[in-house]
């Protein structure tokens, strides 16, 4: 019987970071266009946009590198 091949953990890490980063980035864009009534400290530097983008690209790179790998 053939042993099934497993996706590496890095594939799942990449996927979850990419999905979450994308959601956070989009929510940051939404808050840029529709500023909330109560602002957090340093809201003017829009952390959700750039942090969400960093997560998206970091996760996307891990996902892309491991999408065809098995262990």
């Amino acid at each position: 019987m053939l042993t099934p091949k497993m996706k590496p953990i890095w594939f799942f890490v990449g996927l979850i970071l990419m999905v979450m980063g994308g959601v956070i980035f989009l929510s940051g864009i939404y808050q840029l266009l529709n500023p909330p009534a109560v602002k957090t400290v340093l809201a003017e530097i829009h952390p959700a946009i750039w942090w969400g983008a960093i997560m998206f690209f970091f996760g996307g790179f891990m996902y892309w590198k491991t999408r065809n790998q098995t262990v």
Partner: protein
Amino acid sequence: MQAIGLTFVDWIIILIYFAFVLGIGWYLRKFTTSQDDFFLAGRKNSSWVAGLAFLSANLGALELLGMTGNTFKYGMYVAHFYWIGAIPAMLFLGIYMMPFYYSSKIKSVPGYLKLRFDEKTRVLNGIAFAIMTLLVSGINLYAMALVLHTFLGWNWDISMWVSALTVAGYVGLSGLMSAIFTEIIQFFMIWFGLFLVSLLGIIEIGSLKEIMARINEYSSQVSFTTLWSTASDPTQNGMFIHWGGIVLGLGFVLSFGYWTTDFLVVQRAFSAKDLRSARMTPILASFFKMAIPFLVIISGLIAIALSIDPKSGFKLLQDGGQINYDSALPLLIARYYPSGLVGLGVTALLAGFMAGQAGNISAFNTVWTYDIYKSVLNRKASDAHLLWMGRASTIVGVIISLGTAYWAKSFPSIMDYMQAIFSWVNAPLFATMLLGMFVWWITPNGAFWGLVAGMSSSFFMWLAVKFHWFSESIITMSGTQSDMAANFWRAWWAWSICAAITILISLFTKRKPKEELVGLVKGLTDEKHDQHLPFIKRPEFAAIISLIVLVILNILFW
């Protein structure tokens, strides 16, 4: 306090996390067909996977909240937990102890005690570890519900049951492998979810130097921003401890006791694919461990700097007139994180709590199945039966943890018992392990009675101080001390008593023949590991680099 409000986007982030961990448990179940798959993740992990899991099993949310809060209370001295209180022990495990553990093909740390000494020492340690694991798991669950209830206003019972059932689901389906997968996801969640707090705090205040300057200006008598320069006088540092307590209690006994013998973390190294990967596991983890202070210590220092500035509007919560130090990190999240990022920060804490609980449960099911059930109750159990027992004990372990959590809820100061529990079990065990691995003439009876004496003396010292039978200063040998200093010194005495009794009894009792100790004791074992590799690819080289980084960090923050 008014609960931190979660928006629709925050809930989406949290739901994505729950869907992922349950989905991974479901996906991995088809790769979990034997007891080795369930208890040792098939022994096929790389050193990177095992190393990150090794670190993450220790990096629970309880620790993140607690250490940020402790930094607020004690200052930079908390960094000792991450540097001298971890790195030398992790390197020692990788270089000297792992060959004995890994090569003997044991499934648990008590399993080593059986091979090196005898069945009674293994069962004693197995039972002590199982009880400790369930207590810690329950306290972890309780702490999580407390945080979610206090800061998010979530229902206490629902928070505990949902997270406990999720952990039971994915660990029950695929054992250690899914625990390791979720621990690695947790590692990334924690860094992405919480490092931004440090970053935004530094941006708000100006620089790390400015943070230190503000704290020094405010507290000129007691230093909160140094590591060693005020350690010769306990009255001059925030932890009220002498460097002797740091080095002997934390740096030697508690640290080595935890990192080299606690099966919760060591089990991750057992899942590595070969001896080199197993040796590299704690060494790689040491680099990431050294980086954690940039997450928790910096956040704690930011909280101090903000709270001494009345214009910042930042103030820790108070419970019944007492400062709630654990509120530092959640309050910083609420201060800096907009919608979406709040969900990420909460997910990072949830991931930390759940991975911490999964780690405890996966270690418990292994020790229960091999060191108690198979060893005492059913010696002829088949492979399939042990796999079933692993799954059943996962469910039972989670249910007992829930019971422990409700019990913990009725004791308001139960969190203080965490370090005490470690000093009862791990500190004496380290003496037994150290002597067992490095001195061939230590006998089974010496080890057993040494362990009994070490554990009971540690427990007695804790009781004696708790009920004022004698003063804490007898243990710490100083008129000024904190609870933390007492923990360090108690661990040191428990280790010393265990070592002394073990040696004394070994002098008068029957030794094991040397031929039975080959592969288990230094000096009787072939120790030429990884000699075929170039030096820069050997674990020893990585360990030297890690030590150099450790020395540089200590000098930088001297």
